[in-house]
């Protein structure tokens, strides 16, 4: 991860624009492919994504279960014997009902059942699809809007910058989870309607939008800073001197640099977004039942934590692995694209 530091020069010097535009990407790819740890993590990520995409196949053809419908009175087969999925206590006063634990049999409640008697393994895969979808979409929203805001604020300066920066300040000062919670509480309980766009309360678009919006300042601020400093750079000043138009400048000088930053930040944002999604769903203001995400499964697992810890453990491990892979991969991409970049990691 560290032996690459001395090597990079062209992007910083910015002498030959054509060369800068063409070669860094190839160079970066070569560097990334050489980073074995990062590649291993990319492989892990690919496996997780494929497994999650195969969720319907698993639920339908392997486990023969509907992970979205309650199965409180159902039975399943363990060691050839039929047992209830939700077992009522028969001892003492006979209080309490316990869902079946992990059977380690891929065909019958591999990871056990949750409080509704649903197959946790199947829900885990379906939940992964939602978690990944929300994370990716939110990270895209964040990066695209942040680039837009950052570039506009940094490039045009003056009043535009003033307004946008204050806006970012306000969002920034609102603790992330609190802002997300406020927005979720509002939107989740009513849904949102704007022209032809109608989001019902259970829509995944809600958590996506919310998570996407709250992290904008974290990306937009560094990008604005970058644009400001790029504008002051000699090569841009030189281009202005040569009579280049604003738009040409933006297009050919500033955007390529900014996009690099956004690409470097993307996997890290994705990691953060997945953690945030999990947190919101855990606080029951993210993905809504009967849909699942890794966060909601952890929440379901909390109710049976002491008796059936597997329900909460499995999605947590899935999140940790995915986020770890994204972080390492993100580091790799950063090192590959811009070895000298010092990006402030947000939490």
């Amino acid at each position, binding site marked *: 991860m560290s032996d690459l530091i001395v090597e990079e020069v062209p992007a910083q010097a910015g002498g030959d624009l054509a060369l800068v535009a063409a070669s860094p990407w190839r160079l970066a790819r070569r560097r990334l492919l050489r980073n074995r740890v990062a590649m291993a993590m990319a492989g892990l990520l690919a496996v997780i994504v494929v497994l999650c995409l195969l969720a319907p196949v698993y639920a339908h053809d392997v486990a023969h279960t509907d992970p979205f419908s309650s199965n409180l009175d159902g039975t399943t087969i363990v060691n050839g014997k039929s047992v209830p999925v939700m077992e009522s206590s028969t*001892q003492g006063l006979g209080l*309490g009902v316990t869902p079946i634990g992990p059977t380690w049999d891929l065909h019958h409640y591999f990871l056990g059942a949750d409080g509704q008697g649903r197959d946790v393994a199947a829900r885990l895969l379906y939940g992964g699809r939602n978690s990944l979808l929300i994370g990716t979409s939110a990270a895209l929203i964040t990066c695209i809007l942040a680039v837009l805001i950052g570039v506009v604020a940094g490039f045009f300066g003056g009043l535009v910058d003033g307004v946008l920066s204050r806006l970012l300040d306000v969002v920034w000062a609102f603790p992330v989870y609190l802002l997300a919670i406020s927005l979720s509480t509002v939107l989740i309980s009513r849904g949102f309607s704007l022209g032809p766009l109608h989001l019902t309360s259970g829509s995944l678009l809600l958590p996506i939008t919310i998570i996407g919006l709250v992290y904008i300042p974290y990306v937009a601020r560094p990008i604005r800073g970058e644009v400001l400093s790029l504008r002051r750079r000699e090569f841009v000043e030189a281009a202005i001197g040569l009579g280049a138009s604003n738009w040409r400048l933006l297009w050919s000088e500033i955007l390529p640099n900014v996009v690099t930053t956004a690409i470097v930040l993307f996997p890290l944002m994705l990691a953060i977004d997945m953690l945030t999604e999990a947190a919101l769903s855990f606080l029951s203001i993210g993905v809504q039942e*009967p849909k699942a995400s890794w966060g909601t499964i952890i929440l379901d697992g909390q*109710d049976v934590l002491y008796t059936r810890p597997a329900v909460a453990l499995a999605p947590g491990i899935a999140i940790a692995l995915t986020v770890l892979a994204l972080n390492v991969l993100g580091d790799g991409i950063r090192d590959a694209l811009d070895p000298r970049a010092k990006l402030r990691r947000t939490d």
Partner: protein
Amino acid sequence: MVRNRRALLAVVAAALVAVVATGSSGATAQSHRGGTLKLLANAAGGTLDPQVNYTLQYWQLYQATYDGLLAFQKAGGAAAFNVVPDLASSYTIKNGGKSWVFTLRKGIKFSNGRPVTVNDVVASFRRIFKVKSPTAGGFYSGIVGATACLKTPATCTLKGGVSGDAKTNTVTINLTAPDAEFKFKLAVPHASILPASAPSSDAGTKPIPGTGAYYFASYDPNKELVMKRNPYFHQWSQAAQPDGYPDQITQSFGLTVEAQVTAIENGQADWGYDFPPADRLNELGTKYAAQTHLTPLTAFWYAPMNVNIPPFNNLKARQAVNYAIDRNALIKIFGGSKLATPSCQVLPPGFPGYKPYCPYTKNPGSTWSAPDVAKAKQLVAQSGEKGAKVVVISANDEVQKAVGVYLASVLNEIGFKATAKAISGNIAFTYPQNTKNHVQINVQQWYQDYPAASDFLHILFGCESFHPGSDSSINMAGFCDKAINAQMHQALKMEVTSFPKANALWSKIDREVTDQAPMATMFTPKHLDFVSKRVGNFVFSKQFYWLVDQSWVQ
């Protein structure tokens, strides 16, 4: 009277009555006197004002701290539904049920040392309106002059409604119409008699002196509520306000339910207000069976269905839901078959007017046996509402949320397209009431205020409880059937002359409402009290639950 009562009481309660009534075993009772009873609750129950607070959490404690003119008997089992004279030594009903005359007992003092006078009684009734008690309009609007008081509470006098005569030590309450249930309404905490000097607005966290065996010594909603012995208390009626055992009762706030159970198991506390988490139930039922008390409640869990908007404006769609719900599965969510019993109707077992009735089961009759999903699917198909989108609203606590998820699953199974939505427990009661929020079906429970069938049927399904556009419209189904409502009024009138006759009519109304299915009844819950090892003499009143001060800790 004592003999009669004994027959009804649970064994423990009978033992208590024997102890105090005969006095022969006074030494035993004396040896249990003293100590501190430590109660726990996750959060405080809000204002401590007995005329404003409407939570079970504090109503339970008001039993030992405040008195009304009348009181529910402090006893176990069904005897708790008896209304006995409390601060009044006796009362007579005149003028065809429109005038109630109470004679006050002498020598009773508030915990601040001041004697209870007719002035205090009159002021307390005015105060119900001045502090805008939640039930001011519901329970006490029948008092002459109440209409003006509801309109302009600040200047409330109840002229012609409540008057006191210091010479004869009597108080007269005049009603606009006879009301057989008025005696119940006088026995709930909102009709507590407080000093005339009590503030004329919600007292909030500042305790108001009372007449009970205990008084509230301090209250900090973020920390704890402390009850101490009322130094001016002497027992005037064992049935209305018995002396208690512990010297001090505290309720501490802030521990999670999980931690409450652990603390009680370890003997660091004596009881927790909140329902234990599902994954601890087995442990309580086995290792701590002797400390776990289960009592059936007069309550029901139900899912009101909005009869004014699709798809549940269609009777067949509503009945389909009733047929499809597997009550046994729901009870599993609630903690197992020992904690609740399946039900299809409005009135709970043991309640006035209750006659078992269940049309929505495999073999229709009096009790529920199994869901009839085929019939439900058929009804949905006939209703033409197949594929309709439904959102099931529930509170976001563990059990109610799970019930909501289960209902959504059932609705999907029979042909609707349902999702579940859990909202904060604090708005889960008011949000579905407002027609503007377009709630189709939601998860609710109703626990009785007082033992009369109208408290379920008329309040929850009467036309008078439906107020479109208001957050206070407790008839969440928006159910208003003119014929049924007329019968309800007829039954209310009949109560004045004969409760048994009226109750027969209420049974009929219960069946008719059930047939119209403005709700899907799920089950009748039991109450679980988990107490520490040292708690003795556990007495459970059906009206106000565990009588905390009647238990001893040493």
